[in-house]
């Protein structure tokens, strides 16, 4: 494909932007259930998500890039999760961590939302109950990969 120099420059800039966004994914401090403990564990010495530049857990959705829905989303909690997602500043990503968040898991019942993707868009699903912390690290890797290779983000409006 032909590219004008300007376009080329823009594309490179876009690459840089994507690199920056992918290496500085700050998660939102939001724990829901058991998975949240494993989410905390990724910061622990053994796994240390800091290595990937993501240890800056922000409690305010305004400053976070990544929402890790870690655990079961109850019907009562669903509006809260949605609101928090809405309140995050763009660009933002979502990891649905664990069976419960992704599909309801074993709790196919009245109380649990059957998959958080019914209320907010999910970028990466992590199966497991709970996923091991390295499984979550893998998911963070996938998010990074996605940002770098064409997901939301960058400077060219692509969404």
């Amino acid at each position, binding site marked *: 494909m032909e590219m004008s120099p300007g376009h080329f420059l823009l594309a490179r800039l876009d690459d840089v932007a994507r690199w920056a966004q992918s*290496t*500085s994914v700050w998660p939102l401090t939001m724990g829901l259930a058991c998975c949240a403990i494993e989410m905390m564990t990724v910061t622990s010495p053994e796994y*240390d998500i800091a*290595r990937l530049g993501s240890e800056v857990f922000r409690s305010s959705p*305004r400053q976070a890039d990544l929402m890790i829905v870690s655990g079961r989303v109850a019907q009562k909690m669903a509006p809260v999760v949605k609101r928090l997602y809405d309140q995050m500043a*763009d660009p933002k990503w979502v990891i649905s961590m664990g069976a419960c968040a992704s599909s309801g898991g074993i709790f196919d019942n009245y109380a649990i939302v059957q998959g958080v993707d019914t209320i907010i868009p999910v970028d990466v699903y992590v199966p497991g109950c709970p996923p091991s912390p390295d499984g979550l690290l893998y998911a963070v890797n996938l998010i990074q990969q996605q940002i770098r290779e064409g997901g939301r983000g960058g*400077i060219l409006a692509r969404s």
Partner: protein
Amino acid sequence: MDSALAVLNAAPLWLVVTIKSALLLLVVVTTFAYAMLAERKVMGWMQLRPGPNRVGPWGLMQPASDAAKLILKEDLTPSTADPLIYKLAPFISLLTAFSVYAIIPFGAGSQGTWAIGNVDAGILFLMAISSLGVYGISLGGWASGSKYPLLGSVRATAQMISYELAMSLSFIGVLILAGTTSLDGIVSAQARLWFCIPQAVGFVIYVITAVAETNRTPFDLVEAETELVGGFHTEYSGLRFGSFFIAEYVNMLTVSCIATLLFLGGWNAPFGLTMVPGVLWFVAKVATFMFFYIWLRATLPRLRYDRLMAFGWKVLLPVATLNLIVTAVVVAVRG
């Protein structure tokens, strides 16, 4: 090299100064970035983990990527906020944080001090400018139109002004000894004895207030994530939030510089080790002070708000006053 100097000499003064200023700002911002990285790494080491190490070699590109990310982040203004003040607040914070470096000398050469402006009332200007730093926080929290930021900013303002008092009092001891308000003069007054020895009490007070003024653990009640979510900057996103962040770290750097200048002998070499250039000594002292900051953060829990205020007013203020009276007595008696 020579030709470069020649060009410099030929250039009009204002241009030289502008270039110098820009360079200095660049240095300050870079130092901030790596101070932050250093904090993350040192904290990591103290916590049994390596810290950022995958973004660039040894994680050295981490600050760059964080900054670029923050720039590209959506910039939000909540509808409850007062848009003008909301946008002004981080600007004020940043401006005051940067401004201080106009008068901070980093070393002395044959042609005088290495500073943008070597002002006679240097230390007073430090105080004046840093006393403006509180606006960013108080206005920012208020303008967000949200409860957590409001609470955070009220706390922050109260804390910062309380400790500012003790901080200025701790300077006065140094002033008495040095007899001048120029930073240059204060450093030269320490050629033989660093003021952290005769002014030990003042130094301790200064360290405490410095930590409190920059809202760091154990005085980080302003941000106190676990109590007030994000404190005054809860509603800020992107680089506006980043500005507060930068301001905080630049302030950290500033107080480290001040500690070095006022109490640790500035660029004076210890033990007569003069073969190492003074600037390096200066940098080393600042770095040590910064390390101490990080170390504290890795170790200590946070004080409770009422304790903090009571400590500032009931302990630090009288002790600082006493300290300077005692200093004055000594000076008056011994001359």
